[in-house]
C-alpha cells in the first residue's frame, strides 16, 4: 500500500489502488475477514430487532454498515492487544472474538452477561480479550487506549492498542490530549477513526471545518492515513501497516476509515431521517461492505454465492442460539447490586 504521509496532508484512499492487492492477502484471511463481518452484521440486525420489539432494555447503537472497519483492524490483533471502543461497540467485540452468548446476555441485562447485567450495550467489555470496554462517553476511550499502549511499552511487550472513535469524537479534547501524548512517547497505538459522516444527527461539515479527520495527524507528529472503510481489504492492509509500525516501536498512526451507518444513530430506523436523505443512504448501501466483498470473493472464485449464504445461515443459527440462551438466562439477583463496586483486599497483611 501507499506510504502513510506524515505531518498534515492525507494520502489517497487506499481503495483507489485497485484490486490486485487482494492477491497479497491469503485466502484464509479473506474468508476470516468475511466471517467477522457477517458475524457483526447478523449480531447487530438481530439485536436491533430485539430492541425495536422492546425485548432489550436501554439504547442500542448499531454498527451495521461499518463492519469492514472492525473486521479489517481486528484481524491483526491477538487477545493481548487491547482496544478501546465507543457507544457503538458491539461490532468491535464481535470482531475481537467476543462470545455471542455473553454479549446477548449482557444486552438483555442478564447475570450470564459479560458484565453480569450491570453494564449493558454501552459498557460491554471483555478484558481477557483485550476489549477494554464500550464507552458511553464520547471521547472517553482515547486516553485509556494511550494508557494501555503505555503499559505495553513499559512492560516491553510487542502488543499494541487500537483506539476506535468517531468523526464526532475527534472534536473532543480528550482525543487531542491522547493523540499528543501517544506521539510524544511514540507509543504502540493506532487511532482508528470511524468516520461515518455524522456525530449523532449532525453532519461532519456541521461539526468540523475539515473534510478529513486524518488531517489532524500532523498536529501531533504522527502519520495520517485515509482508507475506504467500506472495503475490508483496504482497511486490513492499512491497519496492518499501522499496527506493524506500532509493533516496531515507530509510534502511533491515525487511520481514518470513511464509512457510513446504515441505521439511525440509535435503533434500526435508517430512512426518512431529517438529517440525511434516503438517497444518500441508498448510495452508501450500494457499497455495502459485505455484499461488495462477497461479489469480489465470488469473482475470485474464493466463495460461491451458496457458500456465502451458508455462512450467513450458520451465523444466524449461532446468533439465534445465543439469543435464546440469553433470553432464557436469569436476571441478576438484586442482592448483587452492591457487589463489584470495589476490588476487595487480597487478604491479610497487604
Amino acid at each position, binding site marked *: 500500500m501507499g506510504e502513510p504521509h506524515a505531518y498534515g496532508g492525507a494520502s489517497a484512499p487506499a481503495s483507489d489502488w485497485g484490486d490486485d492487492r487482494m492477491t497479497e492477502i491469503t485466502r484464509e484471511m479473506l474468508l476470516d475477514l468475511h466471517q467477522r463481518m457477517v458475524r457483526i452484521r447478523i449480531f447487530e440486525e438481530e439485536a436491533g430487532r430485539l430492541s425495536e420489539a422492546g425485548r432489550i*432494555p*436501554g*439504547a442500542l447503537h448499531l454498527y451495521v454498515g461499518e463492519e469492514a472497519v472492525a473486521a479489517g483492524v481486528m484481524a491483526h490483533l491477538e487477545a493481548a492487544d487491547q482496544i478501546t471502543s465507543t457507544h457503538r461497540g458491539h461490532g468491535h467485540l464481535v470482531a475481537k472474538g467476543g462470545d455471542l452468548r455473553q454479549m446477548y446476555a449482557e444486552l438483555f*441485562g*442478564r447475570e450470564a452477561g459479560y*458484565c453480569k*447485567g*450491570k*453494564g*449493558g450495550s*454501552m*459498557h460491554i467489555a471483555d478484558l481477557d480479550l483485550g476489549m477494554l470496554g464500550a*464507552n*458511553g*462517553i*464520547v*471521547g*472517553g476511550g482515547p486516553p485509556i487506549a494511550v494508557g494501555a499502549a503505555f503499559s505495553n511499552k513499559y512492560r516491553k511487550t510487542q502488543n499494541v492498542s487500537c483506539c476506535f472513535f468517531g468523526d*464526532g*469524537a475527534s*472534536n*473532543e*479534547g*480528550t482525543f487531542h490530549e491522547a493523540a499528543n501524548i501517544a506521539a510524544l512517547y511514540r507509543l504502540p497505538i493506532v487511532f482508528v477513526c470511524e468516520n461515518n459522516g455524522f*456525530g*449523532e*444527527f*449532525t453532519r461532519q461539515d*456541521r*461539526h*468540523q471545518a475539515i473534510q478529513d479527520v486524518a488531517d489532524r495527524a500532523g498536529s501531533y507528529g504522527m502519520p495520517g492515513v485515509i482508507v475506504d472503510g467500506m472495503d475490508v481489504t483496504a482497511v486490513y492492509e492499512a491497519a496492518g501497516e499501522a499496527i506493524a509500525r506500532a509493533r516496531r516501536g515507530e509510534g502511533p498512526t491515525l487511520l481514518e476509515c470513511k464509512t457510513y451507518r446504515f441505521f439511525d444513530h440509535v435503533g434500526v430506523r435508517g430512512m426518512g431521517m*431529517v*438529517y440525511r436523505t434516503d438517497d444518500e443512504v441508498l448510495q452508501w448501501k450500494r457499497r455495502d461492505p459485505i455484499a461488495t466483498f462477497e461479489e469480489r470473493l465470488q469473482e475470485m472464485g474464493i466463495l460461491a454465492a451458496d457458500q456465502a449464504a451458508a455462512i450467513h445461515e450458520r451465523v444466524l443459527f449461532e446468533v439465534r442460539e445465543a439469543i435464546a440462551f440469553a433470553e432464557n438466562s436469569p*436476571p*441478576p439477583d*438484586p442482592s*448483587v*447490586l*452492591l457487589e*463489584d*463496586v470495589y476490588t476487595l483486599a487480597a487478604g491479610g497483611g497487604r
Partner: protein
Amino acid sequence: MTAPESAARRLPYVMAVNEAITQLMREDPAVFLAGEDVALYGSVFGISRNLLAEFGPERVVDTPIAEAGIMGLGIGAAATGLRPIIDIMFMDFMTVCMDQLVNQAAKMKYMFGGKARLPLTIHTMAGGGRSMAAQHSQSLEAWFCHVPGLKVVMPSGAYEAKGLMVAAVRDDNPVIVVNQKALLGASAPVPEDLYEIPLGVANIVRPGSNFTIVALGAMVPEALKAAETLAEDGLDVEVIDPRTLQPFDTGTVVASVRKTHRALVAHEAVRFGGLGAEIAAQIQEEAFDHLDAPVGRVGAPFSPVPFSPVLESHYVPTAETIVTEVRRLLGRQA
C-alpha cells in the same frame, strides 16, 4: 406558587421546557440556545423542537461534541452581554466541562471583584430509570451545590420546569437546571404566559402536621404517593419541594420541622454525600430541640447506576423506599 388546579391546559414536562425557551427567546433577543443536536434535530429529548424554524441557526446552534468548548462559548457570550442557554445532553457529561463551569463560570464574578455579570443557564438531564447505565444516569447536583457562585434548580414537574427555566434564564448568574428523565413525560397544568418561579423559595406541595418530607425533583411525586400510604398509618405528612437547591430555602424546611418534629430527605442521587446530608445537617442544627427522631435520608445505594432493569428498579428510590424508611425511623422511636 403552585399551578392552579383549574388551569385548563396540561403540558408534558418536555413541552413545558420547550415553551419556556421559546417564549424567553421571543422576549429577549440576547437569549440563544446552543448544544449538541439542539437545532436540526430538536434535541434528543425534544426540548428544542421547532426552535430552529422559528429563530434560525444564529440563535439555535448545533455544536460539535465538545462540552468544554460549548460551556466556554456560553461563558464568553454571557460575559459580553448575551444570555445563553447551554444544553449539556446528559448530566454525566458535565464531567468533561467541570473546569469551565466550576473554575471559570462560578468564580468569574468573585475573582474579578464583582465586575462580571454572567447570565448563563445550563440545561441538563439527570437520573436513571431508563436502563441507560452508569454513564447516562447520574444525579450529580450535590457537586454543584457545593460550589459558591453557581445556582442549581431541580424541577419536580412540568409547571416547575417552565417557571424555573424562566427564572434561571432571567437570572444574572450561572444557573444549572437539572431535569430528570423520569419526569419528561409527566404532564401538569402549565399556564401559557411567561411566568417565573422565584429562585431560592421552596414550595410546600402538601401541608401536613406531623412529618416532613423534603423531596428533590422526581422524588416529589414519589413523596406524595408515600404520603398517601403513610396517611393510612395515621401520619399527616408535609411534603416540601425545595425547587432551588442552591441557594437553599432553609427557612421553609426548618419551620416545617419545628412543627412536625420529624423529617426525611429524599433524592435520587447516591445517599452518601448527597444533598440530603446537607439538608439533614441543617435541620438538626436549626431545629435540634424540636426533633423527635433523627432526620432520615433516602437516596441511591453506594454503587454506580446498574443497567439491568431488575437491578435499577432496586437502585432508584421510589415511594415504597420512602415509606419503608419513614416507618423504620418511627419504629426506632418506640
